[in-house]
């Protein structure tokens, strides 16, 4: 009985390996024989760049041409935050004070101010160079994680204002949508003169929202398995 089950499992594994290999070979053949498309979209994107209010083409795509995708992506992030908040409230809060000889605390004292400045720079420079809200928020989330590892009490997730902070990215986007509707009578149509400012407004709040969400996901697992 035991050997029968093993053989069956072996057979299924070999079948899986075989099927996946066949698919991969087909995929490689498809990549080799099919040339990449002609870059018509890139020309279009670069031609309209000055109407977008930013000069980095990737930021223009993210927050102007395809801003609807980014809007929904903020919604995905907030959905995960909403789902995880009860888990962080469930765990017992252990009142541990940061010890003065802690090495993590000394690293944090050096890195946290530097990272905050770096994050602000990344957020600002996103309109002309690679950068933007997501990159800045990862840095800020790293700061919060570092502080949490050093047992510094950072964010109390039971307060209502933290929920407001978590939703601030999506709220800022909804505000921009409503305001730009009254200005241009269209769905997420940003007027070229204001586009740069509106994009920065959305990115500013999104940075905080995303970094606190990332920290929330870390904290609920970290505190639960101490």
């Amino acid at each position, binding site marked *: 009985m035991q050997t029968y089950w093993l053989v069956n499992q072996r057979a299924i*594994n070999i079948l*899986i*390996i075989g099927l*996946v*290999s066949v*698919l*991969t070979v087909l*995929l*490689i053949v498809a*990549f*080799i024989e099919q*040339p*990449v*498309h002609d*870059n018509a*979209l*890139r020309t279009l*994107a670069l031609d309209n760049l000055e109407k977008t209010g930013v000069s980095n*083409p*990737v930021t*223009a*795509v*993210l927050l102007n041409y*395809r801003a609807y*995708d*980014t809007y929904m*992506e903020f919604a*995905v*992030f907030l*959905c*995960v935050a909403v*789902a*995880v908040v009860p*888990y962080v*409230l*469930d765990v*017992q809060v252990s009142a541990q004070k940061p010890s003065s000889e802690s090495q993590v605390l000394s690293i944090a004292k050096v890195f946290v101010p530097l990272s905050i400045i770096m994050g602000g720079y990344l957020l600002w420079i996103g309109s002309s160079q690679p950068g933007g809200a*997501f990159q800045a928020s990862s840095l800020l989330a790293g700061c919060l994680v570092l502080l949490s590892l050093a047992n510094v009490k950072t964010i109390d997730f*039971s*307060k*209502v204002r933290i*929920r407001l902070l978590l939703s601030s990215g999506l709220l800022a986007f909804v505000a921009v949508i409503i305001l730009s509707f009254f200005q241009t009578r269209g769905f997420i149509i940003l007027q070229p003169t204001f586009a740069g400012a509106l994009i920065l407004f959305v990115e500013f709040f999104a940075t905080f929202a*995303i970094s606190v969400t*990332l920290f929330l*996901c870390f904290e*609920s*697992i970290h505190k*639960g*398995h101490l």
Partner: protein
Amino acid sequence: MIMLTQSILFSICAAILLAIGLMGFLLTSDFLRKLLALNVIGMAIFMVLIAAASADPNAIDPIPHAMVLTGIVVAAAGTALGLNLASKIARFARSIQNENSTQQNKTVGSEKVRSEKHTPDGKGK
């Protein structure tokens, strides 16, 4: 003979990575490893997109870069939710295990026993 450009090489590596990730997902039975395998598959797909963006090294297409940025964020969100669920399942299982062992052994003051307390809905100021 095919032109072995950087883009084609990247795409082939992406296909192999996809195979590794897919086989990892289907062959392992550990649920956390399945989540990791999903991340590997995600990275492989992003590699395909970036390779498609860099077909012409002088004219780089920005649309796939935006797609990859969005994809990374969405994959990170999904992984975060998965890890939190796994953590909750593990805590549940551990608390049930602790209840059973304390009922059997009647040991007092076990340090590892953490019962789950539901904090009241006190969203006060």
